[in-house]
């Protein structure tokens, strides 16, 4: 299966490596593609949007006409800036900023403050304890009905997922996974979950 990592800007190589490791841990055959143009998205069943600068990612995607194409990808995993890109609603939005508006979450950009407030800590997640790095991280302010929580920090959602399965139209299966922190820097557990869903999603497409 083809898994894309949006490679216009951000910590791309860390996600490429984590995806390859996760695939080999699961024994899945997985072709990891760096996505910079529409052409690169062809046949991609799951896309990872890395951490980076959300305003930069958005502009580069827009200039490439990638928004409409990314919306068609059945499975998307966004970390940090990637989570901002997935969100239906964002706070501290720049006047010319646009997101994919795919996932029913409300996100505050740089919700913890500037870099000197960035931090790391151990957090409990659905996939066990992980070392979580919050780097100028966004904060998830609220989640919609269909969104389930994967990890909490002091009562705040820091990782969540949403499955959209419209049975009236079998092409409309979508799986979205968002984290405020950077699992790609410390674990492959989130990538494994993403690949597991992607491999099953073949059935729906």
């Amino acid at each position: 299966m083809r898994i894309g990592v949006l490679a216009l800007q951000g910590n791309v190589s860390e996600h490429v490596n984590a995806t390859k490791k996760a695939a080999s841990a699961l024994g899945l055959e997985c072709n990891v593609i760096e996505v910079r143009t529409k052409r690169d998205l062809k046949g991609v069943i799951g896309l990872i949007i890395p951490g980076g600068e959300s305003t930069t990612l958005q502009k580069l995607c827009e200039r490439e006409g990638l928004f409409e194409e990314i919306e068609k990808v059945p499975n998307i995993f966004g970390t940090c800036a990637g989570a901002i890109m997935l969100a239906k609603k964002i706070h501290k939005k720049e006047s010319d900023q646009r997101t994919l508006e795919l996932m029913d979450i409300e996100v505050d950009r740089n919700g913890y403050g500037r870099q000197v407030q960035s931090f790391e800590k151990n957090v409990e997640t659905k996939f066990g304890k992980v070392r979580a790095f919050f780097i100028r991280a966004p904060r998830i302010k609220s989640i919609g009905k269909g969104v389930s929580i994967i990890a909490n920090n002091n009562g705040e959602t820091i990782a969540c997922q949403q499955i959209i399965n419209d049975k009236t139209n079998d092409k409309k299966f979508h799986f979205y996974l968002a984290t405020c922190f950077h699992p790609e820097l410390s674990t492959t557990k989130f990538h494994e979950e993403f690949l597991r869903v992607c491999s099953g999603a073949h059935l729906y497409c």
Partner: protein
Amino acid sequence: MSNEIGTFNIKSGLAKMLKGGVIMDVTNAEQAIIAQKAGAVAVMALERVPADIRAQGGVARMSDPQKIKEIQSSVTIPVMAKCRIGHFVEAQLLEALEVDFIDESEVLTPADPTLHVDKKNFTVPFVCGARNLGEALRRINEGAAMIRSKGEAGTGNIIEAIRHIRAINDEIFSLKNLSSEKLVSLAKDYRVPVTLMEETAKLGRLTVVNFAAGGIATPADAALCMQLGVDGVFVGSGIFKSSNPAKMAKAMVDAVAHFNDPKKLVEASVGLGDAMPGLEISLLETKLSERGI
């Protein structure tokens, strides 16, 4: 399970998030907004761009805090600022201002003839310039979370940045075939721990993010550095000393994102007007890259 701030992972982590991006020198809020609109991943808040520092001479120091605050309040992307080499009090001021990254920079007049800032003592991450592997490893050992080539700032001449990028690449490549005795002896020459040398040799690259800086004047210059393996670029005078800064800024961002795609590079390079005027290195009175080795 308490929050740990200012760890090396958190500092080097921000540098990783800047990869594939362009960091632009700006001297006021208006320029910072132009940079952000163009897609810069961060801005460097300065009083004067390097070309003006070079032309005006005299002692160049940290920017007026008011200037930095003005730029911080105008954009949401990270704001960096420069301190003089070894001037740890300027660094303390910048940390108190909550800039997102400090550039301990040879573009400003050095404050300490022998020592750099002890960067491990700070919560805010530092980037430092380097001309070769020894300089890069010394800075990393002092706690730098990011390295950039020194190049020759304010010249619009890419040759020195290329010299530095290639030197670091070649020296890392040659580490691979060194016996452990030679590695120990080289670590002594470089004045860094052998473990840092071993880790660098194993990775085949620096242990932190490495950007190009110093003399980048066109989108093709930026893509040249990227194709030589750097993780991103700093553009100093190259944007706001060009005839159309907004266009040049966008072109730099596009060129770095698509550095391996000549057709995209053509699109980025069309109709930009004049690049900044360039200077011949051999005619320079002051070589900034020789500061702080």
